């Protein structure tokens, strides 16, 4: 049987270090399989989050060989064989233990974004008419599995720790899904500029690169939001037109 070498970060807020492991691997093994095997065999208390094991829940986020990845969708086969595979926790959030970080900040941020506010129903039975092309425009954003890998990689959070002033790419995607929702009537533009710090994003596109759902975060969500916000802030005419058109 083939074996693979792993270096897994273990520790807590007070510090930690990489620990070496050797794992017998089976065909098709993903990083999460190896981590769980290590956990079952020798490190029973190794902290790690996972649920679906199919890239659908966004629980198993970590940095594999330095890259933010879903452990359940990272095949050993696709990683270099001649060096140990390193696995470490996300960097943008406080460490809890081993591979688990405290991501509760993300849940607080979401609450600060104004919720969905639909227009009055089109039909008497309380339903709306929406067409596939209206829906398709936002489907991309609604694929988000809240893995927070984009939050992890964004330098505004990771290096500059602007957690107070900047909501991060995940929540621009969320805001974009609401702003472009065919039924939504809320206006989030002032918030985006003032409370949510969209101006901090300097379009490095790192977030787009790591998104496991392939959401084009920067081009399709952030840039259009920036355009709306700028229109509003600096262009009184555009503002007037928007007022007349309802958005």
């Amino acid at each position, binding site marked *: 049987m083939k074996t693979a070498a792993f270096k897994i970060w273990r520790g807590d807020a007070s510090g930690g270090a990489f620990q070496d492991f050797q794992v017998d691997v089976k065909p*098709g093994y993903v990083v999460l399989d190896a981590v769980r095997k290590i956990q*079952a065999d020798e490190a029973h*208390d190794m*902290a790690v989050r996972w649920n679906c094991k199919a890239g659908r*829940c966004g*629980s198993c986020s970590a940095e594999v060989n330095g890259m933010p990845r879903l452990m359940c969708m990272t095949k050993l086969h696709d990683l270099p064989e001649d060096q140990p595979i390193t696995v470490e926790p996300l960097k943008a959030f406080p460490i809890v233990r081993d591979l688990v970080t405290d991501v509760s900040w993300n849940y607080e941020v979401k609450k600060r974004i104004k919720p969905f506010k639909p227009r009055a129903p089109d039909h008497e039975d309380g339903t709306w008419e929406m067409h596939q092309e209206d*829906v398709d425009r936002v*489907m991309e954003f*609604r694929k988000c599995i809240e893995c927070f890998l984009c939050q992890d990689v964004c330098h505004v959070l990771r290096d500059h720790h602007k957690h107070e002033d900047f909501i991060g790419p995940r929540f621009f995607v969320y805001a974009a899904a609401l702003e472009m929702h065919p039924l939504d009537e809320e206006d989030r533009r002032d918030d985006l500029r003032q409370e949510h710090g969209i101006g901090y994003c300097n379009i490095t596109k790192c977030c787009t690169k790591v998104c496991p759902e392939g959401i084009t975060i920067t081009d399709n969500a952030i840039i259009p939001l920036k355009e709306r916000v700028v229109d509003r802030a600096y262009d009184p005419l555009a503002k007037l037109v928007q007022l007349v058109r309802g958005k």
Partner: protein
Amino acid sequence: MSEYSTVEHDVLVIGAGGAGLRASIEAAAQGVSVGLVCKSLLGKAHTVMAEGGVAAALGNVDGRDSWEVHFADTMRGGGYLNNWRMAELHAKEAPDRVRELEAWGALMDRTPDGRILQRNFGGHAYPRLAHVGDRTGLEMIRTLQDHGIHKGIDVHMEVTIVSLLTDGDRVVGAVGYDRERGRFRVFRAGAVVMATGGIGKAFLITSNSWEYTGDGHALAYHAGAELVDMEFVQFHPTGMVWPPSVQGILVTEGVRGEGGVLKNSEGRRFMFDDIPPLYKDQTADTPEEGWRYVTGDKEARRPPELLTRDHVARCILREVREGRGSPHGGVFLDIAWIDEKVSDGPAHIKRKLPGMYHQFKELAGIDITKEPMEVGPTTHYAMGGIRVDADTQMSSLPGLFAAGECAAGLHGANRLGGNSLSDLLVFGRRAGLHAAEFASSHGRGTVDAGQVETAVREALAPLERAGDANDGGPYYIMQSVQELMQAKAGIIREEDGLREALDGLRDIARKAAGVAVNGNRDFNPGWHTALDLKNILTVAEAVVRAARERKESRGAHSRTDYDGKDPDWGTVNLVLRKGEGGEMDLRREAVPEMRQELADIIQEQG
């Protein structure tokens, strides 16, 4: 005295999948205070994984659909052991619950005239599943989550409940620990809603995650509530079989709904070889008719691939056992072939089944637009669970409600695909509503400090005792339950195997009672797993006992020694309850007689 903090809520909801979220939203809307507890982070519950869709007789695609047809389909699928009142409420209320999601921001695929699109699924007479590609569960849980967080619900994430608290018969709260630091938390409540999902982790090959250890079933049982229909465990016909690391991961029925066909190693569409009499009239005679059905021809009948799950799973097993399986012990599921029928097949498949395309591409290195998939049965869903009142969802214990997969009744002997997501919405809402009413009229109960003390001490024991170095640790004990259940109480059952399973479980329980874990209380999955053992052993025993008692084959329950349905068993539910001496008591109960008008509907629908 152990250390713990205390929180108070009018309604405590345990579980934050679709059922728990819907219950919380409804309870909060009644103006009571609500606490919502979940083992994982919010939005990660099993509901997120649901793919195919949510069943509701909206009639958007085929105007002939109605609640009556949905009701009759559900009862037929369930081998008529369903709680008919639940099936009635479910069929009537599901359309409103689905529309309501749209008012809360959900976006579903559309019909050409701008309404919610519906797709075909096994056992449903008409296209009935509202869906979004193959990520319906994600859309649903995110909608409920994003709506719910603005409703003043207190969410306790990554907290595991280990025990319910009772005052006499009445349930008055629960004890849990936070996974992060292992601190204990006591919840004092006026009413408790159980919404903990299923029991899939009792088997080795499963589409379910680590969370599905039957906690709610076991917690309710140990508090004195009744369980029903526990012999009925659904094995989904199509799970991945290769590579080994992905074995069991679900391949949505949507693949077959979109025209995917099952073939054996000889290239034969074997599903045409065995069509049950009950479904003969509704099933296509030829592949050509089957294709017309999946492409929306109202005159055509459904292809045999869309027969109920129990039947399809058994047919697959038969092919494999008789040597006509695929290289890795499954059969072939082919969607690529539709390229013959539609223009640009690959693009069509990617649009209809993006998640499946991605899943096979990434995890198995297979391009489903070009090659067939290898699939085989996987443990999927528990029809059995906490016995509840159909209208209020209250269990046999006052103050304890249950909804979603951990509750029983709606699905009888076999669940139809899509009927779970609708179940969560319909009965989640009802549970939340009635729990809020109960809490308002009864006030908060009294918590007995002695019960808390016992629960905490029991939970800490694995960290404190010196272990047996040879038991393999908590993960291997868990795995031994799974192996045993897979081998002896899986799709095909018989007396000797079930007896061996019971003996085996007894041995494993002995080991589990002495399990020790290393490390401390900080996010320690070894410890968490050790605590899940009691639950999994409880539900496994319930499944085996009920399966042994039911001496016939019906729905998801198949016995080689009692082949076929036995009419005498067709009117009996099996009810389990903890006896005075701690043993598991099992009793037979007659299925209540159906209201005449409902019986007439079934007659009419044939």
